[in-house]
């Protein structure tokens, strides 16, 4: 047990640096994929066929590509196109591009859960597009979007570990460093697990709370 604690205290700076970067990756990619995903979701429900097709293609390509491949492409292939991109920005970009495909699907299916009659009634009352969107469709759609959106972000938090394979020092990269220091790997990995549980539990609790709070009988 003392040995187990020693692993953490002796390597505290590595752990704190790793998890700080994990949280940083998570926050930046969360904001980025929320913006890009919502934009793509808007394209997929727009009345313009070209935008719908673009959104659908993007989602189908990215959803069927492993995140590791997105990382590998940005890190190894993109510099060959004379575009200089550092490891950390590449990780932000890879996570954002990949996750926004899933955010897009959440947004689209959230809007599709709203019954057509709701908006038809609103239009019959003479509401404009923005009024229909702002006071009828979105309030109902957001309710059904919140729980799956939380699932996407929880999955994304776990996906940040993949950046470890591409020279970013985050929580997933700790075992490789520890292997050089000769620390007992089981304890090292157990501490990383505990770190992730600490990060994920609040998100899960928030998700369950929102799910209960926003539940509506339909």
């Amino acid at each position, binding site marked *: 047990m003392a040995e187990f604690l020693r692993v953490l205290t002796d390597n505290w700076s590595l752990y704190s640096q790793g998890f700080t970067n994990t949280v940083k990756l998570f926050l930046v990619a969360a904001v980025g994929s929320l913006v890009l995903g919502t934009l793509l979701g808007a394209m997929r*429900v727009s*009345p*313009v*066929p*070209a*935008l*719908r097709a*673009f959104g659908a293609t993007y989602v*189908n390509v990215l*959803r*069927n*590509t*492993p995140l*590791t*491949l997105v990382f*590998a492409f940005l890190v*190894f*292939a993109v510099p*060959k*196109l*004379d*575009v200089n991109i550092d490891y950390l920005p590449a990780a932000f970009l890879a996570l954002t591009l990949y996750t926004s495909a*899933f955010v897009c*699907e*959440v947004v689209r299916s959230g*809007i*599709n859960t*709203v*019954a*057509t009659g709701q*908006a*038809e009634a609103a*239009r019959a009352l003479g509401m404009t*597009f923005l009024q229909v*969107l702002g006071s009828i*469709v979105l309030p109902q759609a957001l309710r059904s979007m919140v729980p*799956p959106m939380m*699932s*996407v972000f929880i*999955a*994304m938090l*776990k*996906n940040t*570990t*993949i950046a*470890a*394979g591409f020279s970013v020092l985050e929580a*997933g990269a700790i*075992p490789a460093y520890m*292997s050089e220091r000769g620390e007992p*790997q*089981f304890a*090292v*990995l157990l501490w*990383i*697990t505990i770190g*992730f*549980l600490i990060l*994920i539990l609040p998100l899960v609790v928030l*998700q369950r709370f929102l799910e209960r709070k926003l539940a509506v009988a339909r």
Partner: protein
Amino acid sequence: MTQATVLYDLPGPRARRRNAIIGVVSIAAIVGLIGWAVYRFWQTGQFEARKWEQFQYAAVQRELLAGYLATLKAAGIATVLALLFGALFAAARLSDRWILRAPATFVVELFRAIPLLILIFFGYYVPLQYGWSIDKLWALVIGLTLYNGSVLAEIFRAGINAVPRGQSEGAYAIGMRKNQVIRLILLPQAVRAMLPAIVSQLVVLLKDTALGFIITYPELLFVGKQIGGRLAFGLPYVPTYLIVAVIYIATCGLLSVLAWWLQKRMGRARKTSAAVLPTKDFGDAGRTAI
């Protein structure tokens, strides 16, 4: 799209004109984007014959095929094991005995919360340190099995729980035992409804085999890195990754189409007057398989 959606009515003449203008502008923007990318490819010589010629060699094709087969092998073994793991733990979670239920719940919730890569590292770094010999394939398979098996357990459990209560109550009323109720009444109905969610999760499993790249298991992505890194062919990373991406997208796309087809097929009402359990994604994992 001729049908009115929730967001907008059938467009009138003015809206049609406006949509046409937006359409033309956005097509121009998309073409511009693709054109810029292609120009960039061309300018940096990605279309040079030298970068593509090694794909004509049988040896390189065999290399790619070997990588693809390694990917499929890991995915295949992990699929079988994960389905077994999922069935076992779903059964334990549905048990009436808390002594079975509590540990199964703990295991399933724990493995769903740990990043898959960390699970794979458990199977890779720990044996490495003590000098035990473990195949990289099995490190990958163990990680994939634990994670996806836990997610599948949740899908199975949620699927069984989604069958209307009247079904099991009726079965108990005519004197069936719990074993019979689940096997004869609940499972046949639940499997139909959860099949699409299961297939979606298997797509996720197949994609996640690419994590083997990080522990240097020689799967498709790893082979791609090697082929792309050959100086004699001008470091053809871009062509190689494009080919690898096409292979992944085709394979996963095929499975996704299967899931979609199952969903459509299962969604059709049977020739019965009884209500059929609707097909849907189960559990928060199935809902957004990522």
